[in-house]
């Protein structure tokens, strides 16, 4: 009995000692003594852990590389697809903006009927300024019909086939358009050139014209309807020795970026050739 009591007491004391040591250890009272020991253990464990992770990475790396490559290829394909979609959508936005501007323009001039057409080509010769549009006689397009954009006058239909038409731009060297200078209240003739520059000719010396003056079609000659915007005067060349003044013109339309145009379908050009007197011997 005495032995049993003594053993229980010893066990209890041992537990109390161990518990006390643990409480003191957790309380940080042994830190000074335990630091070199725990520091060494931590270093050893860290060394083993880092080597173990390196071995694991070495074993797992090839599998991950293949997976990553596949994933990368998938993502690259996805990026390419999305980029194509972005380009497509940007084109649609541009087209929509142009069409919206053209619709606004046609609403502002309800007296005319319009047919929208896309530009599908240009004249193969650099000397000539013609565009080819995707509307032809099947859609009622006829030779001589004026062509405009929301910015101003583009030209007139020169030749027509069933599904396409060729349009002579006002910048063509053979083109001439009768125009009206609103500020100076005088008429003139606008001619093109091989370089695409526009020049106003046959302006009376008495007329007062200035840079920035607006140029509209006059409707004379029956080739174009009146009051279509053509451009603005950039500079004036007035020499006292000459019969007429000349002026350089900035066109309202950017002919290098034409993509969609409007053909005025209810305007019939008047052929004035029979009215021109011919000289008889």
């Amino acid at each position, binding site marked *: 009995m005495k032995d049993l009591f003594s053993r229980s007491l010893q066990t209890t004391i041992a537990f109390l000692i161990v518990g006390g040591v643990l409480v003191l250890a957790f309380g940080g009272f042994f830190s000074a003594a335990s630091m070199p020991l725990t520091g060494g253990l931590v270093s050893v464990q860290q060394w083993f852990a880092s080597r173990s992770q390196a071995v694991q990475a070495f074993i797992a790396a090839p599998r991950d590389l293949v997976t990553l490559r596949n994933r990368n290829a998938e993502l690259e394909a996805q990026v390419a697809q999305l980029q194509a979609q972005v380009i497509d959508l940007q084109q649609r936005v541009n087209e929509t903006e142009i069409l919206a501007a053209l619709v606004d323009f046609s609403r502002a001039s309800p007296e005319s009927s319009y047919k929208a057409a896309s530009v*599908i*080509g*240009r*004249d*193969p*010769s*650099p*000397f*000539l300024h*013609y565009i*080819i549009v995707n509307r032809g006689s099947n859609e009622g397009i006829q030779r001589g019909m004026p062509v405009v954009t929301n910015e101003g006058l583009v030209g007139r239909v*020169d*030749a027509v086939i069933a599904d396409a038409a*060729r349009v*002579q731009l006002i910048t*063509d*060297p*053979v083109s001439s358009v009768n125009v009206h200078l609103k500020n100076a209240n005088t008429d003139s003739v606008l*001619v*093109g*050139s*091989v*370089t*695409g520059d526009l*020049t106003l000719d046959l302006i009376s010396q008495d007329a007062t014209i200035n840079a920035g003056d607006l140029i509209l079609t006059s409707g004379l000659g029956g080739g174009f309807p009146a009051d279509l915007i053509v451009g603005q005067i950039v500079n004036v060349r007035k020499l006292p020795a000459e019969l007429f003044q000349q002026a350089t013109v900035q066109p309202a339309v950017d002919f290098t970026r034409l993509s969609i145009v409007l053909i005025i379908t209810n305007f019939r050009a008047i052929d004035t050739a029979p009215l021109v007197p011919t000289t008889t011997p």
Partner: protein
Amino acid sequence: MRNLIAIPLLALTVVIQSAIVPSFTLLSGYADVLLVLLAAWALQEGVNTGFQWALLSALMMSIVSHLPWFIYVAGYAGVVMLAQLLQKRVWQVPMLAMFTVTFLGTVFMHLLTFVYLRLFGGSVSFSDAMGLVTLPSLLLNLLVAIPMFGMMRDLARWVFPSLEPA
């Protein structure tokens, strides 16, 4: 029979010339891919269909262009004639012949166009035409001439297998 490749090839070139080439301008000039193609084709050894190709090209171009058909017929036939003439004389240096034909052919074609426009009332100044249209077009044509010659050489070997080097 393989000569019939001319029809789709020339039609495709006319489409490219009308739809794409005018977007790549240098000053006011741009390349005449069809002229360069005809020059390259006519310079190939054993090719004797140069004039047929030139006539077909001229007819196709006159559909698209405002210039009358006879300008293209004369211009392209002139290019082929020059190419055949040079092909016999400087056959050992084909690229030199190609550049010469491209240079002279472009000048000839532009001269024809210039004369036509002057006769029919266009306001065309010679200095503008030469400096801003012809010279830039000439440079672009010479640039196109290098790859075009190689392509036409391959095509000639396909059309005339007997020309294939052993």
